[in-house]
């Protein structure tokens, strides 16, 4: 017999990572009387993309160095013109305040001898990278602020669906991943901050959890927003990153390139002019690897001892500190070896590319009372500062929204059906293990959806993903922990179907490798200068074009083309 826990709050934040902790803090700052609850399937002290901190800010717009207008311009060009500039502008405008507030909480950013923020250039144009060599305790600091602001936290509960009534979000349901309790939370507003879909493609190592993203981020929010009726956008603009081969983490060029490191082919020659991650850069990497001039490497061997030691001290303590033991076990050293780089598995993540739940410049989705922020909310190239900015916007705007609404009782039949859906694998403990079901699903993603994309392969993929509902029904779970993984496979399947349908719908190529179609190899602004959005309508996945919002910063995209190819080698 399953216990049911019933909770009630004004604002519910699902996911306590970068965006979620900030959303809760800002909601409480806006109205200390309001009840704010963070629901987290891990523990907010060490959860999300920055569980082990971050080594730098990639999108810092600091007065005296750059302006929000310049930032919007650079991201407009990098994202081939498809974006809501008003949303990107927020990251440029509010990022500085976020950095100052984090600074006041004890987060350490690199400063020069005059005490000014010490910005570095990694982007094609402009200085936006602010190193954080001591950024390892970011999550501990945020956790302390969540407590100080008296936001409530429920750890180890995973949400599975947003509850919707009368067309608005009224809470969420899920279960305790340790004791198995069914959890129903009524809320006046829900903020989804569940991160990327990092377990979409399968890493070449074959290890399910050896992903670039924190593998807890399985596309939960993409799936929950979809089932709540919200629009998603740019899903065909996959996340694909240049990573340390096998280790599958960043090398990290953003740290090392300001010191003079660069990406080179096996002959030691540069083939990209800029190490800022973009689809265009990834296409050059893909071509280089297929030209016979691979493997490619991040080259540091030409740097002096002091510089290499400094790079190492940053890389071994932040973000993915186990890089050190990975290199050590292979007898590799930055003084003597280039770091072999490879192309990551595909994922969905607007923090790096542009795929996510549609949000406007207030963090609102298309469903009233439902907000999204962070890697799952579609604000292109938004990175960590963008997650903080949109967490902040969603938190403050949700508080404003809940003033005028009341709690609504969830529908009893809907709750019973969702409960039955969740616990089905527990009724069948000897069913097929989630590991096998997930492995097969993600192998299909690799085989048929990984760029270069073509119609025949994607048609096969789509068909397999649709039929995979039957396979999900065969899964068995022996305990609540296994049940968590089973329900994550449901999220991954939803994301895979969205990725296939959106990729088939946009009949052109755009964003370099992210949406490179063999059968439509050129960019076609005439027909496709628009978003491809999708939503659930009458239980069907419907796709449609959504016009790009009018620009607030003029960019001539005919003249300004993002090109990082090095032609003379």
């Amino acid at each position, binding site marked *: 017999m399953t216990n049911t826990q019933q909770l009630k709050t004004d604002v519910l934040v699902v996911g306590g990572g970068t965006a979620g902790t900030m959303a809760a803090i800002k909601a409480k700052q806006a109205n200390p009387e309001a009840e704010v609850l963070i629901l987290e399937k891990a*523990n907010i002290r060490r959860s999300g993309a920055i569980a082990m901190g971050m080594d730098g800010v990639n999108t810092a717009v600091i007065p005296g160095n750059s302006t929000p207008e310049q930032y919007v311009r650079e991201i407009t060009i990098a994202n081939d013109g498809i974006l809501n500039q008003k949303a990107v502008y927020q990251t440029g405008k509010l990022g500085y305040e976020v950095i100052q507030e984090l600074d006041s909480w004890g987060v350490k950013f690199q400063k020069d001898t005059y005490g000014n923020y010490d910005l570095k250039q990694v982007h094609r144009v402009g200085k936006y990278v602010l190193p954080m060599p001591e950024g390892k305790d970011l999550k501990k600091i945020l956790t302390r602020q969540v407590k100080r602001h008296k936001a409530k936290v429920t750890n180890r509960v995973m949400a599975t669906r947003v509850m919707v009534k009368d067309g608005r979000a009224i809470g969420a349901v899920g279960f305790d991943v340790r004791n198995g309790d069914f959890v129903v939370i009524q809320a006046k507003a829900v903020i989804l901050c569940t991160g990327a879909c990092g377990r979409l493609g399968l890493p070449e190592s074959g290890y399910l959890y*050896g992903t670039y993203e924190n593998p807890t981020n399985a596309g939960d929010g993409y799936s929950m927003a979809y089932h709540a009726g919200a629009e998603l956008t740019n899903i065909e603009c996959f996340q694909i990153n240049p990573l340390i081969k096998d280790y599958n983490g960043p090398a990290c060029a953003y740290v090392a390139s300001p010191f003079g490191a660069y990406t080179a082919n096996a002959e030691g020659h540069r083939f990209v002019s800029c190490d800022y991650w973009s689809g265009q850069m990834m296409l050059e990497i893909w071509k280089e690897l297929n030209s016979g001039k691979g493997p490619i490497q991040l080259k540091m061997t030409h740097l002096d001892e002091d510089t290499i030691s400094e790079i190492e001290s940053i890389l071994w303590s932040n973000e993915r500190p186990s890089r050190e033991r990975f290199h050590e076990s292979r007898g590799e050293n930055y003084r003597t070896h280039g770091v072999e780089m490879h192309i990551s598995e595909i994922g969905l993540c607007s923090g790096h590319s542009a795929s996510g739940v549609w949000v406007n410049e207030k963090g609102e989705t298309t469903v009233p009372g439902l907000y999204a922020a962070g890697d799952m909310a579609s604000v292109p190239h938004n990175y960590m500062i963008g997650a903080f900015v949109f967490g902040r916007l969603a938190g403050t705007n949700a508080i404003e929204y809940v003033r005028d609404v009341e709690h609504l009782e969830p529908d009893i039949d809907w709750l019973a059906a969702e409960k039955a859906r969740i616990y089905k694998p527990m009724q069948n403990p000897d069913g097929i293990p989630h590991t096998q079901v997930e492995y097969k699903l993600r192998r299909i993603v690799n085989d048929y959806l990984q760029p270069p994309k073509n119609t025949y392969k994607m048609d096969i993929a789509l068909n397999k993903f649709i039929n995979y509902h039957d396979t999900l029904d065969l899964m068995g779970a022996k305990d609540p922990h296994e049940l968590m993984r089973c329900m994550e496979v449901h999220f991954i399947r939803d994301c895979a179907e969205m990725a296939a349908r959106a990729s088939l719908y946009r009949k052109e190529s755009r964003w370099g490798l992210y949406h490179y179609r063999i059968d439509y190899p050129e960019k076609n602004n005439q027909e496709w200068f628009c978003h491809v959005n999708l939503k659930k309508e009458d239980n069907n996945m419907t796709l449609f074009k959504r016009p790009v919002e009018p620009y607030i910063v003029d960019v001539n995209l005919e003249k300004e083309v993002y090109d990082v190819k090095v032609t003379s080698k």
Partner: protein
Amino acid sequence: MALTTQRVDVPVIVDESKCLEKCNACIEVCPLDVLVKNPETGKAYMKYDECWFCLPCEKECPTNAITVQIPFLLR
């Protein structure tokens, strides 16, 4: 369904001589929730092979009882 149990090399190694029975530090911080206590010994161990080799367990262990290896397939 017919099932079998396969042996796997897991990345998180716990030195039982150092692991404290009353401490849950590693279990509480693991993002993937893969560590549990052996009810008979009170010592922590890696029950589920789902590791991101992210290291909070190792860093937060008060007695340095934990060593995280890179998972065998990636090593």
